[in-house]
């Protein structure tokens, strides 16, 4: 209950500071936020769009969450997401039958994410390099690699602003509106993470390693293996986020400025923190930021830039750093009462 209240307070603080900035700038926060929620939840079409935008956020949220469960601050989702997207897209160069093509794309994208996560694990375990540093460096390498492939190798000769579109044999079928069956990939992986972490021995090892590595090691749990596993699973999940963005959403391609992949990887950090690093909580966190993203598109029409959402996100993450704030306030009140 306390955890829920803290999270709620962080969300409210984020939204309030967003409102304050809009007010300072001379925009009416009420109508802006009304437009945001109207744009995100107002009708079935909007709601489908919101769920669709939440799906990749679930996956990058899982990446950060499983890292924290193992005691890691894995901020490598951004790079793994980019590579997953570009590998899934490249699979479109093969010609395979309907369905199988999609499956192959997901497998290859997942492998790319795992391969990109491997050096992070090896550097941490064998050279003591902090995953914070190695993941950020690899994010930038992945950024330039993806940009190279998108601009130089995969671009559509007729359309300078994007790559070729993936063939229909590897697209997720549409459910309704913007929502496609990439839903299954995203929710399925979240459920798998939940089952794995709470109902499987190796998942228990990950959580034990995160809670207290010394105690875990003393009781014979292979902490190194747990760290390796958490990072590789995170790589898989983040890569799928990029893959489903390409295979399950218009324009079924990557834009030349990578804008349709955006900051999906970094957004996952806030998603996971709001979800208390629990795979099912991540679903709620992703829906919250999916709402903001969809609604922000609507706010963007009213002349409010999408960066506004990132400010709200930053404030929320900073406030989530203070789990004891409530306890401290209560203590102070008690002291004053005395």
């Amino acid at each position, binding site marked *: 209950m306390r955890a829920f209240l803290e999270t709620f307070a962080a969300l409210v603080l984020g939204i309030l500071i967003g409102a304050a*900035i809009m007010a300072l*700038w001379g925009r009416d926060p009420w109508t802006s936020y009304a437009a945001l929620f109207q744009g995100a939840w107002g009708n079935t079409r909007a709601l489908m769009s919101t769920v669709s935008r939440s799906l990749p956020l679930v996956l990058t949220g899982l990446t950060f969450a499983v890292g924290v469960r193992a005691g890691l*601050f894995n*901020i490598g989702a951004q790079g793994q997401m980019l590579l997953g997207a570009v590998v899934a897209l490249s699979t479109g160069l093969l010609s395979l039958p309907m369905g199988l093509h999609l499956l192959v794309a997901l497998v290859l994208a997942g492998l790319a994410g795992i391969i990109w996560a491997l*050096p992070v694990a090896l*550097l941490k375990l064998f*050279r*003591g*390099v*902090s995953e*914070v*540093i*190695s993941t*950020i*460096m*690899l*994010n*930038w*390498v992945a950024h*330039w*690699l993806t*940009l*190279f492939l998108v*601009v*130089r190798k995969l671009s559509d000769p007729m359309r300078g602003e994007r790559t070729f579109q993936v063939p229909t044999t590897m697209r997720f079928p549409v459910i309704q509106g913007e929502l496609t069956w990439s839903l299954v990939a995203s929710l399925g992986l979240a459920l798998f993470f939940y089952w794995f972490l709470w109902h499987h021995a190796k998942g228990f090892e990950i959580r034990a390693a995160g809670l207290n590595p010394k105690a875990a090691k003393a009781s014979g749990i292979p902490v190194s293996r747990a760290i390796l596993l958490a990072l590789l699973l995170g790589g898989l999940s983040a890569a799928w986020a990029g893959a489903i963005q390409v295979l399950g959403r218009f324009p079924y391609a990557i834009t030349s400025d990578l804008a349709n992949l955006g*900051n999906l990887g*970094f957004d996952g*950090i*806030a998603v996971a*923190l709001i979800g208390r690093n629990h795979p099912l909580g991540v679903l709620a966190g992703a829906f919250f930021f999916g709402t903001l993203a969809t609604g922000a598109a609507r706010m963007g029409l009213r002349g409010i*830039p999408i*960066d*506004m*959402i*990132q*400010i*709200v*996100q*930053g*404030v*929320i*993450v*900073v*406030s*989530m*750093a*203070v*789990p*004891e*704030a409530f306890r*401290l306030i209560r203590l102070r009140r008690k002291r004053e009462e005395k």
Partner: protein
Amino acid sequence: MRILLDVLPVALRAMMPITLAAVGEILAEQAGVVNIGLEGIMTISAFLAGLGSWATGSPWLGLLAGLGCGALIGLLHGFIAVKLRGNQIVSGVGINLLGMGAVGFGAWVLWGAKAPMLDQRFWIPSFSVSGVSLSPFLLLTPALVALTWAILFRTALGLRLRAVGENPMAADVVGVKVEGLRIFAAVYGGALAGLAGAFLSLDWLHTISPTLPAGRGFIALANVVFSKLNPFLALLGGFLFGYFDALAIQLASVAGFGGAVPYQFMRMIPYLATLAVVSLAIGRARFPAALGQPYRRE
């Protein structure tokens, strides 16, 4: 191979942000506060320094604005880390996200562009020695390195700072003010990161953007590890990391060996070099025992 020499003047600039941010972070980490939000501080400070210079017409006031902004964010981080006993890593991650968002928003609102260029009037003036344009930071940065080293290892204040990072309980018992010192250290670290950000926009890159530091805040963190928390080694590390940064810029601008190597691959150099340096060249650094842990009086 002349390019390896031609890079030197650029390297002398590229080393500045990586050195300054690292040296500030060294003092903070010696006192037990870790701030991985250096990137975000640099982003916001670069923006506010540019804004300050643009609004007042004085690049020096702009520089001061960047420094002050960094100190304020350092204060916020220190308050969260020390008084509220928050999670320092999460707070740092939040600062980074905040940096990207705030600058994207601010630049768009003020100038209607995400990456506006700064006019030459608003730059920090360079001086020139036999035709090579040099930055005043060439004097300022080593001075700050020496100052930080002297504070840490030659003053009573430094002794207390290090005691607070190593064993806050013991320091507390002998009457050292743990919380105040740690907050001071966080502010100092933030201020130098702010200076690094101001350098980026006012002295070197002359632009403002949500990704202006382009990972240099994290390269500075790698430099902290490389330096084993010694400011003078961080100066050396700053030059090393800065050299690769400059090499990438220089090679990318001459269309890399007649176009044989694509531009995008040149841009990977500093990140790959940083990974290589932190993984190969060094043994493990010894960090203060109480790094990143809040202190609670029993």
